[in-house]
C-alpha cells in the first residue's frame, strides 16, 4: 500500500503533469489561458487576485526552502532550528492566510457574480475544490504541527522533505512517508492530485506568466523568417522572390 501511495501514485501524477502539458500545448495552444474573467467583474478581483497570487508565491517559496533545501545546508549557514522554525511558521502563516483569504474572495466572486459564474467550467470547479483542500491541509499542518503541537512532535525536514528529494532523484524511499502524521500524508496526496489535474485546468497559465513584460520595450520587431509563411507549401509559380 505504501508503495502505491508514495511511489507509484506520485510518479503517475508527475507523468500526467509532464505529458499532459506537452499534450495540451500541442493540441490546445489557443486554449492555453487563464480564462480571465476580469471583463465581467473587477472590483472583487482587484482585491482577491493579488492576495491569492502573492500569497501563493510565498507558499511556493516556503515549499522550495522546506522541501528542497536539506537541513544540513541551513545549519551550515548558521540558521538554527528555532530561527528556522520561527521564519517558517510566521512566513508560512502570512503567505497561507493571504492565499486562503484571496481564494475565498475569488470563489465567493465566482459563485455570486452571474457572468463570472456562467463562465465557470466543470474543470474549474474541480480545480478550485482540490486547490482549497491542498491549501487548507497545508495550513493545518503549519498550525497544528508547528504551533499547537497537536499529534506530537514531527520534523518534516527529517521525513517528508527527505522523501521528496528521494522522489525527485528517482530513488524513492516510501518508508519515510509512512511515519509522517496523517496531515502531511493527506497534504502530499492532495498536492499530487492537483499536479495531475494541472495540465487540464487554467493552472497552465503559471507557465506562461508574462514576466518578460517587465523588461520588454514597447515595440518588438521580428525580422522575416527564411522559412515559408503559413503552413502550406508554396505552389509552383508562386515561390517567393528575394528574402
Amino acid at each position, binding site marked *: 500500500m505504501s508503495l502505491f501511495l508514495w511511489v507509484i501514485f506520485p510518479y503517475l501524477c508527475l507523468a500526467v503533469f509532464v505529458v499532459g502539458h506537452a499534450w495540451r500545448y500541442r493540441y490546445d495552444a*489557443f486554449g492555453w489561458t487563464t480564462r480571465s474573467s476580469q471583463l465581467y467583474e473587477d472590483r472583487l478581483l482587484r482585491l482577491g487576485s493579488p492576495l491569492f497570487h502573492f500569497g501563493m508565491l510565498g507558499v511556493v517559496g516556503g515549499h522550495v526552502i522546506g522541501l528542497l533545501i536539506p537541513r544540513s545546508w541551513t545549519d551550515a549557514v548558521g540558521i538554527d532550528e528555532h530561527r528556522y522554525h520561527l521564519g517558517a511558521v510566521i512566513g508560512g502563516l502570512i503567505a497561507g492566510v493571504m492565499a486562503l483569504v484571496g481564494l475565498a474572495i475569488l470563489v465567493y466572486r465566482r459563485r455570486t457574480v452571474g457572468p463570472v459564474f456562467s463562465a465557470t467550467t466543470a474543470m474549474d470547479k474541480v480545480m478550485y475544490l482540490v486547490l482549497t483542500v491542498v491549501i487548507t491541509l497545508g495550513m493545518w499542518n503549519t498550525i497544528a504541527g508547528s504551533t499547537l503541537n497537536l499529534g506530537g512532535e514531527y520534523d518534516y525536514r527529517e521525513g517528508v522533505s527527505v522523501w521528496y528529494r528521494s522522489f525527485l532523484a528517482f530513488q524513492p524511499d516510501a518508508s519515510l512517508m509512512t511515519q509522517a502524521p496523517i496531515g502531511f500524508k493527506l497534504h502530499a496526496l492532495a498536492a499530487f492530485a492537483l499536479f495531475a489535474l494541472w495540465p487540464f485546468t487554467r493552472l497552465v497559465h503559471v507557465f506562461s506568466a508574462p514576466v518578460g513584460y*517587465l*523588461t*520588454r*520595450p*514597447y*515595440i*518588438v*520587431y*521580428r*525580422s*522575416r*523568417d*527564411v*522559412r515559408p*509563411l*503559413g*503552413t*502550406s507549401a508554396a505552389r509552383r509559380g508562386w515561390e517567393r522572390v528575394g528574402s
Partner: protein
Amino acid sequence: MTQDVPVDSSLEGALSTALIAGRRFFTRATVSDDQRALFKQGGRSGDAFYRDRWSHDKVVRSTHGVNCTGSCSWKVYVKDGIITWEAQQTDYPSAGADRPDYEPRGCPRGAAFSWYTYSPTRIRYPYVRGVLLEMYREAKSRLGDPVLAWADIVEDPERAARYKKARGKGGLVRASWAEAAEIYAAATCHTIKRWGPDRIAGFSPIPAMSMVSHASGARWTSLLGGAMLSFYDWYADLPVASPQIFGDQTDVPESGDWWDAGYLIMWGSNIPVTRTPDAHWMTEARYRGQKVIVVAPDYADNVKFADEWLPAAPGTDAALAMAMGHVVLREFFVDDRVDYFTEYVKKYTDLPYLITLDEIAGESGTVYRPGKFLTAAELAGDSGTVEENAAFRPVLLDARTAEPFVPNGSLGHRFGETGAGRWNLDLGDVDPALTLYGAPTPDRAETSAVEVELPRFDVRGPDALLRRGVPVRRVAGRLVTTVLDLMLAQYGVGRPGLPGTFAAGYEDASAPYTPAWQESITGVPAGAVARIAREFAQNAADTRGRSMIIVGAGTNHWFHSDTIYRAMLMLTTITGCQGVNGGGWAHYVGQEKARPITGWAQLAFGLDWSRPPRQMIQTAYWYLHTDQFRYDNYDVEHLAAPNATGRFRGMGTADALALSARLGWMPSYPTFDRNPLDLADDAAASGLEPAEYVVRSLQDGSLRFACEDPDAPENFPRMLTMWRANLFGSSGKGNEYFLKHLLGTDSSVQARETPPDQRPTSLVWRDEAPEGKLDLLCTLDFRMTSSTILSDIVLPAATWYEKHDISTTDMHPFIHSFNPAINPPWQTKTDWDIFHTLAQTFAPLGAKHLGVRRDLVAAPLLHDSPEAMATPHGVVRDWRAGECDPVPGKTMPKLIVVERDYGAIADKMAALGPLMEKLGATTKAITYDVTREVEYLRGKIGVVRAPGSVTDGRPSLVKDIAAAETIMALSGTTNGHLATQGFETLEKRTGTQLADLAREHEGKRITFADTQAAPVPVITSPEWSGSETGGRRYSPFTINTERLKPWHTLTGRQHFYLDHDWIQELGEVLPVFKPPLDMTEIFGEPEIGSVGELGVTVRYLTPHNKWSIHSEYQDNLFMLSLSRGGQAIWMSDVDAAKVGIADNDWIEAVNRNGVVAARAIVSHRMPEGVVYMHHAQDRLIDVPRTETTGKRGGIHNSLTRIMLKPSHIIGGYAQLAFAFNYLGPTGNQRDEVTVIRKRTQPVRY
C-alpha cells in the same frame, strides 16, 4: 544629421528604464537606444496561424440580392471550395474630382451574409409536404398520369383539406428534383386546364437587385398566362404622390447627390440604419456646411447627426409640412417674391393653370368648390373647331395679354399627330399669370373674388369646412381661378381684399395650416417650424434649388401617405428644387430602379413571345383572395370630404375595387368567372369577335367579373409561386387572414365578419367563408422562412454568392454583377435553372393535356399611352350604370386574345422571341428598334439549333449570363446606341434637342464581363428622367428642367392640383393634412393611451430593423448575437410603467387581427403611446405559444390588415393610370393600434 533622442524618464521612470536596460544582458536581440524598440531575428512561426486563417484560393465579386439599396459590391473569399468570408470592394467609379468617393460601402449586415451558405436553416434539397407527397404517389400509381393524379387529390375535398390543414405544422419531407418538379408541373397543367392560367400567380419583388433571378420566374409565369403580382405598391413603398405629382413611378437622386445639397431634411428616413453604406455622404456633406434636420417621432439613430430634431408625433407629418408650406407661401410668394421661385413654378408646375369653380347653392349663400382643369375643349366652346385631344390640353392665362393660352407639353400633345414636335415646356414669349389677384383683364372689369369651400380633416362636424376667398375671372363662360390662388386659400395665406377666413398670423392656432395650428397636432414648437421652413426656402433661393428632403418608410407607410407626401413635396417643388442637382425629394423606400429596365421588362414578361402579360396589383389581390374584405365594415364615404357629393355612400372598398376593375382602371385577376381559355373558345364558337362576345356576355349577365364573387371556387387563386420573396414572414399584411382563408390552416384571427347591413353591395356574399383557397404554394429559397414552412413544395435555391446576375439601384448610377464564388452546393440550383427545370418538366404534360390554346386577356388602361386619355376631366362614368357604353380599351379593360402553345413553353423560355424585331421594345411610350441588338445577341450568346421549332435560330437564353447580356443589350442605360436612338425618337415628339445627352456614349455597350471587372457607370437614357452626361451626379427630372421635356402628367408639369372625381370626393385636390385612421371609430379598438384590464393601447408601427434588413435576414446568427435576438417590441418607459412591464419581459400584443408574443425592449428613446415591432422578424426564432390563443405566435403582420385607399385605384386618367408598380393601392400598415400587456403564463414553445 543625427540627433540623440533623449529618453523621457518621466514616461518610463527610473525602474522601468533600469529593467529594460538590464534586458540586454539576457538576449541577443537589439534594444534601441531610446529603449522603445526591440529587434529580433526571425521568430515568426507564430504568424503561421494567422497566415493560414486569412489565406484563400480566390476572390469573387458579388453583391446582395433582393432588395438592398446599398447593393454594395463585395469580395467573396473562397478557400478549399468553401466560402469563408466577404470584404468590401473598393473599385467603384469616381463620383468626381471635387467630392468624396462611393467607397466605403458596406455594412455589418452585408458582411454577415456568408453565414447563410452553410447555416443550419439552409435549404439543401427539394421538400414536399409529406401528407401531400403520400397522396400524390398513391394517386399516380393508381392513375398513371401526373396531371390526373393531381386532379384526383385537389378535387377531393377531404384530401385537399387534409394537406392544406397540415401547412405550417412541420412534415416537409425530402423529394427528388424530378418528383418535386413533376408535382409542380402537374398542378400547373391541371390549374390551367380546369380553372385557367390567370388563377396562377407569381410573386418576386424588386427586380433591380438581381434582374435575371427575378426574370426567371416572371418569364415562366407570364408565358403561361399567369399573373405577376406587383410589389412596390404592395410593400407600401410606392409613394402614390409620385405618380400623382410627377407622373413618374419614383425617380430620385443617387446618394452622391446629397453632397450637392445645402440644406437636408431627413424626414421619416433613418439613413444611418437603413441606408448604411450611403450614410457617409450625409456626414461628409455636413463638413461642406450643409445643415441637417431630422423629423422623427423617436430618438432615432439619425437624430444624432442632425443640427435640429423635430419630433413630430407619428402620422402627423403632413400637418408639419402644411405649416411649413404656409410659411413659404406667405414669405416667398405673397409678402415677398423670389424671381427664381416664380420663374420655376411658372414653367415647371401647374400653379398658373386655370381651375373651374363649381357653384353650390348653400344655406349661407353661394359658395364654390374647386373643380376641373379648364382645357382647350372648353375654350373651343361652340366654335366647333375642337383641336385634337382638346380635353387633355389644359389652359393658363397669359399675363401680358390676359388671354387664355394653351401651352405645349400637355398629355394632349404627347399623343396624336398635332402634338408632334410640340410636347415640350417651351412657353415662348408667354408669361403665365400665377395669380388672378390684381391681374389685368381684357375689359378691366371682370376680376372679382368668391369664397371657396375647402374641407379640413383635423376636426369633424360643422367646423370641418373652411371658407376662403380666391380671385376669379370668367373664361369661356366659366368662373376660374389659378392653382396658386387655390393653394394660397388652402394653406390659409390671406391677401387684402379677399373674402373668407384666413389665418391671422403664424400664432393663430385656430386656423389651418399655421405653425401654431400644427403644434397642437405634431407637438413640434411653432417657432421652430417657421424658422426651418424659412431656412429651407431661403437656402433654395440662395442656391437655386439645392434644398433636399430625404423621405422614407416612416412617412410613406401610412394609409394617407399620398397626402403626406404631397404636403412634403409641395415644399421641394414650390422652391424650385425638383430637377436640380442637390435638391428635391429623395425617396428610398423599396427599390424600383432596374436601370436597364427595357431589357429586363422584355425578358421578365416574355414580351418577346406574347403581349400583353398579366400584371396584378397585389394589395387588391390579397384583399379579396384572403377574404380581408369580409371583415371591413366601413364605407368609402367615411374617407370622403365633409362637403362630398355622396358618390361613395354605400360603397365598400370591395365595391370600389370592382368598379376599378370594371372600368379598366386597374387590372383584376382572375378576371372573369370563367376560364379565359374556354372564354376564347366560347367566343369563337359564337362567331363573334372575342371582345364583342365578352361585352355582350357581361351585359346579359352570363359572364361576371371574378372580383365580384371572390369566394366562388372558380374565382380562387389556385397556385402561387414565390421566389426571392417571403410573403408570410415579411410583406403579408393581415397574416392571420392569409393563414385562415388562403392556406386553410391554423390562424389567430380575432375579428368578426361584417354584419349584413355593412357588406359590399356589388359583391356576392357567400355565407360560408372559404378556407384553403390555394391548391399549391411553392417557394424557392435558400433558407427556411415563414413562407417555406407553410409551403407545399420548397425548392432549394442558390444564394447570392452562387449565381450570375446583375444589380442596379437608385442610390448609385452604376451596374455590377453577382458571380458564383462556389457552384450551388448540395442540390440547390439558381432561380434561372429552377424555372427552366420546371418548364422542361411541364412541357410534355402541357403538350398532352393542353396543346395550343387561345387565351382571352383583359388588360387595364395604361399610363404612358393614349389609353390614359380614356376619362376626360376625370369624370367617372360606369357603363354598368348606363352612364356610357362598354367600350374595351376606353370605358372598360382591353380584351386581347393571346395564343399559348403550352407544349413549347420551355423552348420559348430558353430563346429570345421574334416579337423583339417585329414590335420593338417600348418603355414610357418610346419604342426602340432592337433589330441590330438581336443580331448582336446571336453572336454574343449563341443561337438555338432546333430545326422545325419556333425557336430555331433565335438567341439562346439557356444560361443566366445570356439573360444578363440580353437585359443589357436591350436597354438604353447599358447600350449607348439604344439610348441615342430613344432620344432621337423622343426629339420628334418634343421638338427639342435631347440626343446629345447620350451621344457621348453612342458606341458604348456594357457587357457582363465589364460588370465582372468593376461596377460600370450607366448611360443617360430616356428610360429615366435624370442626366449623368459628362459624369454628373444623377438627380431626377434634370432632363425635364434643362431640356424642357414635359413630365408624364396631364399638364406636362408637376401637379399640385388633381381634379379626378374621386380625388375631389376625398377632398384631396390640393395638399392637405389627414390624420392617421381612427381605429377606435372604424373598428372599435380601444383609444390610444387608454389602460384597461387587457393592457395599454398604443400605436403599432413596424419600421425597419437595424439588425436585419435588405442584405440579410433576422435569423442570421451574427446579427442575433449583436441584437436582442428573437421577436421584440420597443416601447417607452412611460407606457411600460402603466402596465408593469420591465425590460426584457415577455409581453403579448393583441388586436382584432391577431396576436403576437414577444419580448419588450423598454427604452426612453421611444415616445409615449407608440411601440415599434421591427419589420420581418419572421416566426422561426424564439416565437413561443401565445397566451391568448395557445397557438404559436404571430409575426409583425399578425396585427395588421390590408387597408385600401380608393384614390390609389383610380385609372385611365392622365398620370392616374395603371402601369406595373407605377400605380396601385398601397399595402400600408402604419395606422394600426394594439393592446399590450405583460405575459402571466410561463413561456412554452
